[in-house]
């Protein structure tokens, strides 16, 4: 028994920190190169601050790399470079949009702020890696983080600090700071779901009825899924945030399915989503409108308050970009409102072309793949669930926002992870990566060598102990 198990578990992951460093250099080339290309394309010269900017970017990611070398030596070597490349590209595109806004007399300095947020995000990333030496410690905070998530989600509803921005009530304003608590809530929710499900998976999976080849869960076990359904509907109704409600509900479904291994949950959930979405379509005018604009954007373009302006301009921009794009400075990405946040993919599509859009989607695909791979090799259920949850959040969020911008699905407001301008999202995503790296470090680390002693003990334990004849 111990022989086969040790030969199975005998495969030892290499640390691959050198590979990570090499990939990081490539990622920096993307980030700094894009920044230089923006300068050349828009202003005709390499930006004067390229050395300072490049140096700062390099210092940030190299620092992250060094920390990983020391505290998480077995962590996945691909995640950090992919994320660094996306963040660097996002900074360059935001800088390019800044220049366009400046030319139009509307300068915000979003890129500078985003760099600050990135610095803060990396600081939290390092802090998370240092503080969290074993991801299983997070399991202790199952209910705490659940409570925190709900509080965070409710905060924007509070009068005084909550604020409705372009129809969605998902922002809180405290003093000079604006914050989107939903972004942090999604990390907390993953931990809560994972902690809850890893304890209750057997109960959820055990009982059920088989109806037409589908294992349906028992009515009483529907409790959590019903609660989640209500929460996402609540977000949809009260905060008018289609994207987040879709994200949270999808996340919970995926984690439930992975924990229980019962596809029935997926079917129940999908039906509930379909029901909820249909009801929302008929009950809420803004949902109806979003859906109609998605189906017939050109009918709405230029009419009725120009609700379709943003998606149609995004389509025009991406079509204008074509296969290889117009090049930095030769497009007009600023025509799309919020090109620096939700619609940054449209800006990339216009100036860098389909090639860059596919590259970005593949980079996101890589992040998801690394997260799911970590889940596969992780040795504990909690870690598996957290990695699957974080990976799925990425996949769903990218699908919802990129699909929305490219008119594959109706438009909902969500940020594009690591690319979009926005502090809450950037920081939350850096913390997600830290957690993923921590789990992958644990998963890839060689199994603790317990065999010699335990073998002896267990061999002893199987000996028949003669107690002597009973009287």
């Amino acid at each position, binding site marked *: 028994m111990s022989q086969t198990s040790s030969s199975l578990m005998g495969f030892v992951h290499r640390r691959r920190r050198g590979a990570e460093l090499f990939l990081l250099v490539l990622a920096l080339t993307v980030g700094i190169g894009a920044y230089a290309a923006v300068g050349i394309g828009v202003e005709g010269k390499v930006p004067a601050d390229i050395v300072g900017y490049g140096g700062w970017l390099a210092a940030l990611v190299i620092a992250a790399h060094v920390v990983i070398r020391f505290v998480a030596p077995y962590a996945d070597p691909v995640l950090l470079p992919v994320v660094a490349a996306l963040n660097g590209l996002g900074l360059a595109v935001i800088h390019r949009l800044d220049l366009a806004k400046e030319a139009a007399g509307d300068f915000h300095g979003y890129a500078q702020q985003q760099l600050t947020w990135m610095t803060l995000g990396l600081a939290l990333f390092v802090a998370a890696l240092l503080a969290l030496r074993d991801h299983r410690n997070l399991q202790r905070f199952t209910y705490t983080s659940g409570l925190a998530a709900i509080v965070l989600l409710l905060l924007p509803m509070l009068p005084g600090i909550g604020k409705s921005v372009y129809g969605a009530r998902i922002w809180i304003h405290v003093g000079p700071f604006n914050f989107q608590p939903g972004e942090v809530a999604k990390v907390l929710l993953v931990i809560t779901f994972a902690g809850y499900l890893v304890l209750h998976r057997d109960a959820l999976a055990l009982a059920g009825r088989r109806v037409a080849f589908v294992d349906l869960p028992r009515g009483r076990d529907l409790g959590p899924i019903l609660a989640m359904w209500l929460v996402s509907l609540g977000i949809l109704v009260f905060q008018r945030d289609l994207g987040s409600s879709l994200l949270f509900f999808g996340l919970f479904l995926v984690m439930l399915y*992975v924990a229980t291994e019962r596809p029935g949950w997926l079917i129940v959930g999908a039906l509930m989503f379909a029901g909820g979405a249909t009801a929302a379509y008929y009950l809420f005018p803004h949902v109806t409108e979003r859906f109609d604009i998605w189906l017939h954007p050109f009918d709405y373009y230029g009419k009725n308050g120009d609700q379709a302006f943003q998606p149609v301009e995004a389509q025009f921009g991406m079509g*204008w970009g074509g296969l290889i794009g117009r090049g930095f400075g030769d497009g007009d990405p600023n*025509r799309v409102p919020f090109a620096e946040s939700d619609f940054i993919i449209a800006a990339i599509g216009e100036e860098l072309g389909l090639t860059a859009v596919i590259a970005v989607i593949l980079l996101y695909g890589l992040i998801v793949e690394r997260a799911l791979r970590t889940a596969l090799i992780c040795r504990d259920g909690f870690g598996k669930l957290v990695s699957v949850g974080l990976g799925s959040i990425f996949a769903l969020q990218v699908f919802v926002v990129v699909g929305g911008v490219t008119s594959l699905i109706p438009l909902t407001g969500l940020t594009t992870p690591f690319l979009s301008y926005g502090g809450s999202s950037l920081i939350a995503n850096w913390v997600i990566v830290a957690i993923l790296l921590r789990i992958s470090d644990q998963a890839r680390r060689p199994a603790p060598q317990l065999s010699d002693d335990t073998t002896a003990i267990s061999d002893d334990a199987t000996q028949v102990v003669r107690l002597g004849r009973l009287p």
Partner: protein
Amino acid sequence: MNKPIRTISIFCLLLFLALMLNATYLQYWKAGELNDDPQNRRVLVASYSRERGAILVGNKPVAQSVESDDEYKFQRTYPKPMIYAPLTGWFSYYSATGIEQTRNDVLSGDDSRLFVTKLVDLLSNDPTKGGNVKLTIDPAAQEAAYRGLSALGPRTQGSVVALEPNTGKILAMVSLPTYDPNKLASHDLGSVQDTFDRLDGDPTQPLLNRAIQTRLPPGSTFKVVTAAAAIDKGLYTAGDDVPGGVTYQLPLTRGSTGLIDNEGRSCGANGSKIPFTQAMEQSCNTTFAQLAGQVGAEDMAKTAEGFGFNSHYFDDLTPQAESVFPTDIDEAQLGQTGFGQFDVSATPLQMAMVAAGLANGGSVMRPYLVDEEQSADLDVIQKTDPQELSQAVSASTASEVTKLMVSTVDNGTASPAAIPGIAVAGKTGTAQAGQTDRSPYAWFISFAPAENPRVAVAVMIQNADIPRSEIAGGMLGGPIAKAVMEAVIK
């Protein structure tokens, strides 16, 4: 838990595949359609900011892009705006017309035949430059036509078209009133909109290219078609006598409504015969009404359609109005068509084609305005080859009709177009507008030299500052046609 994780992986893979497929659809397959969408401002601004090619007449530009120091980088200018406006059209932020519209691909540099140039520009990091479009216009003829027509007064509405008979090249095309395209190409978008609204609302329709878009009854100029049909059918030759008469009662009619006369011109007594030349020289309505009856509706229509009536043949500018020879008519109406009345209507271009067809031995060439398309480096990428539209009448018929028309210039109503030392063939026309309170339309068609024609002209005057009684095709149109022919021949 690994099995569901694998399922989820497949699911995520499908999500990402869907995103990539959709992005490819959007940016590759749908891109062309999106870029062609007239609401797409990006494409407009880009083409507006590009160095468009020039529209050339001779070797001089009549439309060109010059550098400007505002956000659009280039300003479209028209050095001779009023003369060439109906041809160049305008290129504004909002719309384009004329050659600017029909040859936009070449001018903007988007044409696939400019691919190599574009690639070189891309590699050398030069902005794309548009190609040039060279017109068939003879600048001397164009200016003579414009001068002649505008000499009739500031309120003149009319048009002159000159063709090269053996190729179909348009040597001159003038339409009045005209407008200044520079004002519509301005970067001051507010004033562009105001100017456009004013021109568009003007009752004299300055934005109309009357040469191809205004259809009017051609009146007596159509008699050459009737004559050609009669001769081609073998009924007469130029030397024969034809039926004359002071008045002629149209078949199926009684009394004054169907009674036609010659407004006092000498056309013989009722029931007599007069020489064909006299009938043409004096523009005898009574004669040609009878000839049309003899030819028959079917053959009249066949000959008219041979010259281009009832068909579409011109795409260099849009839209071309189709000239009309009515079908399904009774004998009284047929008689009226014989002298270009009833529902017969023609554009000035059409009447120029009638003259050019007779000048070219009965062979009507397809009219064209664009001679060459060139790359920005002046390499010719396309040269238009002359094309025959149809053989309207036989060569001998054409030469017989030419004799009649030369005689009309030498001895008859078309004498104002006579050029000393050169045989000129011509025919006048004065068509009723249908309402008595409106001035009649004056027409004139001619070609020269008669034995080896190099230019055919049609002049149409829809309205001018001239007393109603003085309007006659020969008096008004003859000198203009003469000036245009002289400009080409000399």
